[in-house]
């Protein structure tokens, strides 16, 4: 059997080097076509009429005036009269017209009468007694648990104790498994006791089952130091630069062509087929480039299905439906909030022994799960209670490293306050407790040593509130994080043509993370060719399916399938070429644009000559991941990273400036060092953005989002970016683990590190991020009054 394993360091010519992204020239020149840029002949423009109310019953819908307007080609009523919308911005009616102005005029002509109902858009701390006890899980609740990565044991325990309010269909269970539910979880659902759903519907405040480990009461009683505090992070939006949306066109009555801005090309047909009453085989999906998703673009959304409905009604004409910026911010996903009152107990030497948290937060109508606290540190004695707030802010979606940044804010904040209480340098406290930091303990130790040097931690760090000059207070903070990142299922076809050209077909997508470049580097390395020699066909359902790009699963998935396919097709070529070189196939190697006998440069053919020996028919091999018949496993799971931040706070204005950030990160074998570093720099910047600026602000009086634009939904700009230092862990102990994804991990720590740095600067904790001037000044006022 050929050797599929990754080449060793001395045999790598491309893997791990700094290689420029292959699609950059198209992006910098405006040639790259995104879904939003697709313009088909006769294309109609879709527009959606949205509910202005956070919660309202629809009394009537009158589209007659809109339908009569010249240029309006299709109208589709999405909501039934009598139904209740659950958030402001809910899609009610959609229409398509010859141009965007006409579509907007027609949307204004649609008359919808609502009966507004009382709503909740707050995620403030529940009052005592406000939350209802945990009850049986509905189908939605189970999906919510999956989305929030509820620990398997807690899920099974919950289902056993409380039962479920639905009869799980096999199809449902299958898709739950597909989304990450374990076999044991599926089994628990099969065996779960059925309860009638309660007639009153959902309460807004729902307790989750409390989780207890060890003996927290005894541990707190014996603890030599106890710190208590309040920590949390607000709801934020995804704010993808390319808004959500798609263009659909029925090319005949059975066949649907879809261009869609998605992280999940291969998964879209099945999602669209069912609501459109067609088959997945009839739906063809294509996407060349995608303008940002960050976890919010895995599904065919209601507006995508609607665009296809409108196209059908308009005789198959193409209909483009891209969300306006306001809708993008209001309805296309948000990151759940998470807040917690935490008590943490330790010995005098800093050994953490006990944790107790009462947390709450919202993920919109689904409520949202308990944040996975304490994060990374397996504190032996703990008690956790959580209240999920189901409210009317619109649905949550996965946001880069779902739940981890929130858990880091809470956990690292509590640890940092504990260090202050113990008069310890936080770095010492973290190092002291790394023995309970799980399988990445050694990685964290190495990383903290490097990060500490890069930050100049030992020289710069001062105890809380002791680095003040006039109105400027400076401080340092740190955090650590982990993530899985094992490669997803991925198929590809690698083809060598008789003229020597090579192509790869894979249904994956490049969401800006460099997937094209990753695939090309792996294939080129394996075939001994330059990266430019690999022609890539991706982003299309005509090609072998590859998983959705989420959870940092893509690099491991696509590099593994590409490696296996490339090795196999290379072996097929060797079979054809061996007689010419008077050698056995297994004696050949493909290096430096040649096929030659190993170690004998005199018995060599150029790549082109070698390929001419194959005859008229190209050679193709299917590469797969996972593939237990073609070992070794080329991907792995579990990375560690640390982050450090240095800030300066103006105590007169409350304005926080980040002065420097350091990220040290491991991700197994790095395919492209340049892109890996970019991923970390970008994550640090995104971290600064959510730590200081971003918040989905809900208006309690109207139930609507107050800042659905890019002026007041503020992203970090060029001028908010300080000195950034990134160090990637490579070499022995890292490379041999195989390829692990990097999208999520580096975005986890920045918020926690910055929040801790601000606490160090001010000498008091600003409980919640974003650390806006009002919150900073309130914390200073509280400190002065305390």
């Amino acid at each position, binding site marked *: 059997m050929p050797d599929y394993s990754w080449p060793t360091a001395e045999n790598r010519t491309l893997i791990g080097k700094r290689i*420029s*992204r292959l*699609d*950059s*020239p*198209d*992006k*910098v*020149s*405006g*040639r*790259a*076509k*995104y879904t*939003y*840029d697709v*313009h088909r002949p006769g294309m109609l423009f879709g527009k959606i009429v949205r509910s202005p109310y956070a919660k309202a019953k629809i009394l009537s819908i009158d589209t007659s005036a809109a339908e009569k307007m010249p240029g309006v080609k299709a109208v589709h009523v999405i909501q039934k009269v009598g139904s209740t919308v659950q958030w402001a911005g809910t899609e009610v009616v959609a229409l398509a017209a010859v*141009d*965007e*102005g006409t579509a907007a005029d027609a949307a204004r002509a649609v008359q919808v009468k609502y009966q507004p109902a009382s709503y909740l858009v707050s995620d403030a701390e529940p009052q005592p007694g406000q939350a209802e006890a945990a009850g049986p899980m509905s189908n939605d609740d189970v999906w919510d648990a999956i989305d929030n990565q509820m620990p398997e044991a807690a899920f099974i325990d919950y289902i056993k104790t409380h039962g479920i309010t639905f009869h799980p269909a096999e199809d449902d269970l299958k898709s739950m498994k597909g989304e990450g539910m374990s076999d044991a979880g599926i089994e628990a659902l099969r065996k779960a006791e059925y309860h009638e759903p309660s007639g009153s519907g959902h309460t807004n405040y729902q307790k989750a089952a409390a989780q207890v480990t060890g003996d927290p009461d005894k541990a707190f009683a014996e603890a030599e130091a106890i710190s208590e505090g309040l920590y949390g992070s607000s709801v934020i939006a995804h*704010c*993808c*630069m*390319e*808004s959500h949306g798609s263009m659909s066109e029925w090319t005949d009555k059975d066949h649907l062509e879809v261009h869609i801005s998605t992280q999940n090309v291969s998964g879209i047909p099945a999602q669209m087929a069912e609501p459109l009453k067609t088959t997945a085989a009839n739906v063809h999906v294509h996407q060349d*480039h*995608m*303008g*940002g998703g*960050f976890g919010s673009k895995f599904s065919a959304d209601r507006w995508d299905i609607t665009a296809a409905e409108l196209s059908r009604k308009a005789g198959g004409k193409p209909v483009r439906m*891209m969300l*306006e*910026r306001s809708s993008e911010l209001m309805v296309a996903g948000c990151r759940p909030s998470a807040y917690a009152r935490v008590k943490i107990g330790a010995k005098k030497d800093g050994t953490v022994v006990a944790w107790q948290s009462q947390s709450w937060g919202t993920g919109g109508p689904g409520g949202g799960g308990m944040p996975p606290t304490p994060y990374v540190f397996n504190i032996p004695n703990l008690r956790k209670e959580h209240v999920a707030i189901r409210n009317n802010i619109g649905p949550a979606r996965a946001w880069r490293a779902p739940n981890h940044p929130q858990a880091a804010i809470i956990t690292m904040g509590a640890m940092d306050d504990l260090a202050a209480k113990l008069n310890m340098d936080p770095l010492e406290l973290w190092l002291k407790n790394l023995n309970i930091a799980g399988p990445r303990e050694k990685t964290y130790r190495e990383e903290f040593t490097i990060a500490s040097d890069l930050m100049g931690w030992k020289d710069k760090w001062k105890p809380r509130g002791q680095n003040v000059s006039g109105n400027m207070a400076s401080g340092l903070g740190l955090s650590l994080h982990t993530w899985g990142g094992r490669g997803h299922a991925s198929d590809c076809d690698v083809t060598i043509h008789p003229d020597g050209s090579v192509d790869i077909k894979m249904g994956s997508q490049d*969401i*800006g*993370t*460099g997937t094209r470049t990753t695939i090309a580097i792996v294939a080129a390395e394996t075939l001994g060719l330059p990266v430019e020699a690999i022609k890539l066909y991706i982003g299309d359902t005509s090609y072998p399916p590859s998983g959705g790009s989420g959870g940092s699963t893509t690099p491991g998935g696509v590099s593994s399938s590409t490696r296996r396919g490339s090795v196999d097709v290379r072996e097929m070529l060797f079979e054809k070429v061996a007689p010419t070189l008077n050698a056995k196939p297994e004696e050949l190697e493909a290096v430096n644009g040649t096929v030659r006998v190993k170690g004998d440069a005199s018995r060599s053919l150029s790549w082109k000559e070698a390929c001419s020996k194959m005859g008229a028919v190209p050679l193709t091999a299917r590469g797969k991941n996972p593939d237990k018949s073609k070992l070794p496993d080329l991907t792995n799971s579990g990375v560690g990273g640390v982050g450090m931040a240095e800030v300066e706070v103006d105590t007169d204005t409350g304005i926080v400036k980040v002065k420097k950030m350091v990220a040290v990160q491991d991700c197994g074998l790095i395919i492209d060092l*340049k*892109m890996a*570093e*970019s*991923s970390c*720099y*970008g*994550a*640090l*910047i*995104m971290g600064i*953005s959510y730590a200081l600026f971003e918040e989905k602000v809900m208006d309690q009086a109207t139930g609507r989002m107050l800042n659905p*634009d*890019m*002026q007041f939904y503020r*992203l*970090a*700009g*060029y*001028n908010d*970016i300080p000195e*950034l230092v990134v160090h990637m862990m490579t070499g022995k102990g890292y490379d041999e683990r195989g390829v692990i994804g990097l999208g999520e991990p580096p975005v986890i720590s920045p918020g926690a590190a910055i929040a801790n740095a601000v606490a160090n600067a001010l000498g008091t904790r600003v409980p919640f991020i974003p650390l806006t001037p009002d919150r900073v000044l309130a914390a200073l006022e509280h400190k002065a009054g305390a």
Partner: protein
Amino acid sequence: MKEDDPKTLTQEGSGVSRRDFLKISGISAASVPLIGTKVVEAAGAPVKVYGPGKTPVTLMVNGAKHTLQIEPRVTLLDALRDNLDVTGPKRVCDRGECGACTVMIDKKLSYSCSTLAIDAQGKQITTVESLAEGGRLHPVQQAFVDNDASQCGFCTPGFVMATKALLDKHPQPTPEEIRRGLAGNFCRCGTYFGIRHAVAQAAQKGA
């Protein structure tokens, strides 16, 4: 915004202030719609009133002349994208906040989402598509490639245009000039680090 800010959005040449515009709007709304362009007096000066309905609009885009039939309310951005298939300028915020739609109008860096197509007539409109000559990237574009200054790439054309305008005006920009020159654009993926190095590279090479 300050006078020398490259992103200042004035309607140079139209001679119509915001207050005048409101007055004109009032007049046109009260008047009977006519075919062709109507001239009314507003603020003591004759002003052409376009629309409602489609009107011929002639644009000079990247050196080529195009005449479109569009409504007067269509922005330059939408005219470029939907009528001329010039999709380098991106539609993101559609209200002059993010810079993804940045183009040059004559020598002025402008948000094309906040400029009406009819107001861009008679001016040279330059988009990111025009920078590469004969398939060779402009030094600013090459610097973006070399420094990995794009991830999803949706903000990139706007940043490339802003960087080019900055370096055209200040070939050796001071940090303050860079801050001001790139303050009008946002990126979500966080490519500012790469952009910072791209600006440095392009400035050194005399882009």
